[in-house]
């Protein structure tokens, strides 16, 4: 199969002109990192860009961060395997984000409190130990969550450029991309992150619109629909259909994740906290709801197009990537979309879309690296050490953690061998943090009787979300796989069901513990100005 795979990948349109476009883009990003270093004077400018970001820039940076290459890859995978039924993820994300913008739910109150991170809110509303535990859970969930970013991003580069024919291409691409991101994130902090996000937004939005137009022009919208109908029937359109691979619990889980990704996930919330006013936060979210929808919709559509193209116009790729009943083992379907784009996009444009995707890759990495490292510095180490950490020491520590986390994702990308879809892996690992955080934000911002004991226990309960992860499910017997055929013979609970149960358990624990162990001196609930 390896030979067939190398053969398939090598037939890309990617050429010298495309390499020049990519190199030019990467140089600009590093140049920005050096250019804005002079503006970093304190922790507020390093982590929050001085809370001086306007609406348009806020939308660009939020889109840039949340539309990462990892997002593009996992959604393409969902589209390739689930068809149009996977569009429900986009619909849920768009509706929920718009609702958050309209109501200011969570984000406006957080912005009014002028906190830099969510754990900082935990200390203001509850106590210091909750902040430290919140920081640990956030860093644990977040760093595990980004563990596969580097590997999956590099798979795109390898797939679209046709590098896989050369051995060891993947680790080298991973290392090079990581080094570039580390350079400008360490130097410029949030300012360089925001400006590179803007550049990414411009390149990416143009790139994805043109690519989508070419996909529709080559395959035809009615033809795409008809092919899906003919090959997979109603289950490729209806997410509630049994054969779609989704179902009610999955759709409910996606609605929850829609809320999480815009209003609880710290990289998105960090954008809200950097805005100049709560009104700007609301506008940012209402407009970004289109981006939150698009970030799922377009890559998912590219995955669908790859499936249609492989089924009809490139049967050798169909044999390689589309599983048949009792058929031979197929190649990793994460490669399907980049190989498809490498085949249909003309030279020049394929370079532009690759630059756009590398931009997407870098802008997500920089934000995530900055976010988790600042949480470790600001919310774990600084509260433990009291007032002994100077601003300079904090910035240096944050930079050190950026590098350490970078090394970890390089290591994790090379060793992790779970069989989960990437999107499902990310949901489960993220749930370690956000199931507890959801309870704390909801209770802390809107319920007077929420107590620090309830908050502490609710945070700890998030750890049960790890039971949704494929290797752990197999280890504890929640999922049994036939060693000979590799098929699942028994599964007591799916990852989405574990996630929903963890949310419910965390809320229940929070309420019961708050009622049983109230704070002696309850803190006031913040209100929106």
């Amino acid at each position, binding site marked *: 199969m390896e030979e067939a795979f190398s053969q398939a990948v090598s037939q890309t349109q990617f050429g010298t002109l495309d390499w020049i476009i990519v190199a030019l883009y990467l140089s600009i990003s590093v140049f920005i990192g050096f250019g804005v270093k002079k503006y970093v004077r*304190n922790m507020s*400018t390093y982590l929050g860009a001085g809370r*001086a970001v306007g609406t*348009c820039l806020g939308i660009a940076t939020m889109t840039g961060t949340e539309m990462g290459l990892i997002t593009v890859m996992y959604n393409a995978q969902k589209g390739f395997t689930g068809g149009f039924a996977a569009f429900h993820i986009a619909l849920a994300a768009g509706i929920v984000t718009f609702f958050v913008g309209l109501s200011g739910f969570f984000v406006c109150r957080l912005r009014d409190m002028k906190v830099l991170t969510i754990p900082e809110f935990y200390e203001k509303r509850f106590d210091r130990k909750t902040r430290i535990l919140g920081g640990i859970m956030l860093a644990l969930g977040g760093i595990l969550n980004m563990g596969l970013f580097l590997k999956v991003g590099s798979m795109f580069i390898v797939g679209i450029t046709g590098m896989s024919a050369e051995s060891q291409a993947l680790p080298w691409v991973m290392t090079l991309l990581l080094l570039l991101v580390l350079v400008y994130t360490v130097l410029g902090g949030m300012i360089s992150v925001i400006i590179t996000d803007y550049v990414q937004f411009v390149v990416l*939005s143009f790139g994805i619109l043109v690519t989508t137009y070419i996909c529709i022009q080559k395959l035809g919208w009615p033809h795409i629909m008809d092919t899906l109908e003919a090959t997979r029937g109603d289950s490729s359109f209806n997410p509630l259909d049994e054969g779609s691979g989704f179902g009610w619990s999955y759709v409910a889980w996606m609605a929850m994740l829609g809320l999480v990704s815009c209003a609880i996930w710290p990289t998105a919330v960090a954008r809200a906290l950097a805005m100049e006013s709560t009104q700007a936060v609301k506008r940012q979210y209402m407009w970004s709801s*289109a981006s939150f929808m*698009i970030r799922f919709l377009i890559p998912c559509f590219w995955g669908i197009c790859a499936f249609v193209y492989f089924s009809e116009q490139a049967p050798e790729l169909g044999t390689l990537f589309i599983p048949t009943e009792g058929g031979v083992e197929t190649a990793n379907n994460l490669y399907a979309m980049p190989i498809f784009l490498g085949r249909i996009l003309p030279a020049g444009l394929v370079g532009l879309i690759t630059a756009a995707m590398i931009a997407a890759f870098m802008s997500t990495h920089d934000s995530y690296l900055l976010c988790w490292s600042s949480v470790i510095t600001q919310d774990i180490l600084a509260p433990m050490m009291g007032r002994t950490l100077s601003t300079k020491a904090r910035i240096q520590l944050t930079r050190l953690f950026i590098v350490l986390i970078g090394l970890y994702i390089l290591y994790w990308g090379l060793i992790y061998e779970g069989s989960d879809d990437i999107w499902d892996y990310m949901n489960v690992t993220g749930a370690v943090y956000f199931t507890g955080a959801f309870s704390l934000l909801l209770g802390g911002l809107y319920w007077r009787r929420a107590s620090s004991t309830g908050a502490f226990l609710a945070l700890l309960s998030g750890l049960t979300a790890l039971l949704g992860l494929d290797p752990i499910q197999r280890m504890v017997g929640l999922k049994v796989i036939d060693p000979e055929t590799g098929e699942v013979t028994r599964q007591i609970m799916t990852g989405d069901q574990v996630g929903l149960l963890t949310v419910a358990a965390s809320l229940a624990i929070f309420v019961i513990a708050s009622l049983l162990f109230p704070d002696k001196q309850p803190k006031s609930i913040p209100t929106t100005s």
Partner: protein
Amino acid sequence: MWQQLWTFLFFGALGIFALMSLWVTIGGYRDIKTLLQRLKDDTSEEE
């Protein structure tokens, strides 16, 4: 029913995104200039 819903959602979102991209590209450039000016004027060293 699902086919019509997904068609409407896809092209609707694509249209909104295209318009928003134009607006954000122009407005974002202006915001960057304002942001850098504010940071340049800010002389505080510590929190």
